[in-house]
């Protein structure tokens, strides 16, 4: 389908130039990074900007770095960059695990994690991972820089806390101080690419703390606070896992749509939590399953 409405296009060479343009045009302008979401929206006629601002001309936005205990993911880092980054595979392999289940290679080569959280669709895969690591969204705008904790970033389906003229420059998160391992489990209709009907992310830290995040079972990615509290301070046992799973129905609010029923989603979150907990704990011991292995 052609994009029927005409628009102008600019490719600023610096961040400040980009910010000026976005501030000037407000919601008449849209940023294009990977474009895999925006172009579909424009083809459908759902979004009709007057101006498309290509930030791929701004340097320094694609880096993935680890300094001072903090992981920094540049706004232009693609899902393929996450998969191929030695830093990610060594220190934060769950990011690569999640990225491997996003769409397909040709889309991953373009789509960015930041773009994913800016789209803020309830089924976004990046959100839960970032949430579980207490990530921060770094923005720069006409009024300066902001740091927005991820739980305050998502306001609802396709709604974020971004302000007029602001551009997300990076995501930042602190590595847990102790040894940690994680697991991302994504419910799909088959082995091929699919949007998440539900997702569970488990971060296990060697001091017996667990952080749990759920995707696609609420209007935005959420943490499982009650489950985290129940597990905190205890080594993972069959009994603890059972108790954690028993808390799932009150922790999530899945809906029924053409992709899945709330009954199945709710049930599967329990199974995914169980298997995710076991996998994260096992990985913490240096054992399998390999990152990227199918658990459901």
């Amino acid at each position, binding site marked *: *389908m*052609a*994009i*029927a*409405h*005409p*628009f*102008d*296009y600019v490719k600023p060479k610096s961040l400040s130039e980009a910010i000026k343009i976005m501030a000037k045009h407000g919601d008449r302008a849209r940023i*294009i990074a990977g*474009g*895999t979401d925006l*172009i*579909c929206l*424009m*083809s459908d006629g759902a979004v009709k900007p007057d101006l*498309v601002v*290509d930030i*791929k001309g701004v340097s320094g936005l694609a880096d993935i770095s680890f300094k001072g205990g903090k992981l920094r993911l540049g706004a232009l880092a693609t899902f*393929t960059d996450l998969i*191929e980054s030695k830093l990610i595979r060594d220190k934060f392999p769950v990011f690569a695990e999640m990225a*491997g289940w996003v*769409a*397909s*290679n*040709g*889309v991953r*080569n*373009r789509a960015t994690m930041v773009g994913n959280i800016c789209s803020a669709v309830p089924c976004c895969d990046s959100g839960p991972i970032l949430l579980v690591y207490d990530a921060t969204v770094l923005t720069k705008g006409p009024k300066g820089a902001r740091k927005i904790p991820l739980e305050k970033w998502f306001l609802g389906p396709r709604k974020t806390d971004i302000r007029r003229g602001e551009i997300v420059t990076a995501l930042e998160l602190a590595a847990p101080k102790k040894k940690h391992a994680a697991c991302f489990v994504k419910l799909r209709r088959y082995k*091929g*690419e699919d949007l998440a009907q539900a997702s569970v992310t488990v971060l296990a830290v060697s001091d017996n703390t667990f952080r749990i995040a759920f995707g696609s079972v609420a209007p935005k990615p959420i943490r499982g606070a009650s489950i985290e509290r129940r597990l905190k301070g205890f080594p993972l046992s069959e009994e603890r896992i059972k108790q954690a799973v028993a808390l799932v129905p009150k922790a999530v609010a899945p809906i029924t749509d053409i992709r899945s029923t709330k009954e199945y989603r709710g049930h599967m979150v329990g199974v995914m939590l169980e298997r995710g907990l076991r996998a994260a704990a096992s990985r913490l011991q240096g054992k399998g399953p390999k990152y990227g292995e199918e658990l459901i």
Partner: protein
Amino acid sequence: MKKPISIKLNGSVRAVEIEPSDILLDVLREKLGVKSPKIGCERGDCGVCTVIMNGRTVRSCLVLAIEADGAAITTIEGLQADGPTPLQQSFIKNNSFQCGFCAPGMVLSATELLAKNPDPDEEEIKEAISGNLCRCTGYEPIIKAIREVARNAPKSSRGKRR
């Protein structure tokens, strides 16, 4: 408002006038005469529009032509300066394709895979072509042909897996 862009397409610099709202896939097919990338879904779901842009496969239905200004783009037309590649010959020999509509995209995805990973196992092959939908073959003869060309590649071309 028309804008001039320049693309290095299959090794030749091509200048063309486009509108910002033009999709790369349409410009390649309609203005630059390259017909191997096909129109299948225009949402990035099926892979028949795949081209290699600056060394990586992309879904050209999800790229604005103007984003490709200055880029190097390769389609299967550009792979065959010396005739069909060993990969293509393997596809031909194995009767890998039926209707053939997914073939150009498959060739490029497999080409990208073998460049990154000269000795992929079956799971890696499946992952690399999982974004290229084929309704006809059931994928078996496509996977078989890729494995054969990987196994038959001269040892010197096998780099380290990244």
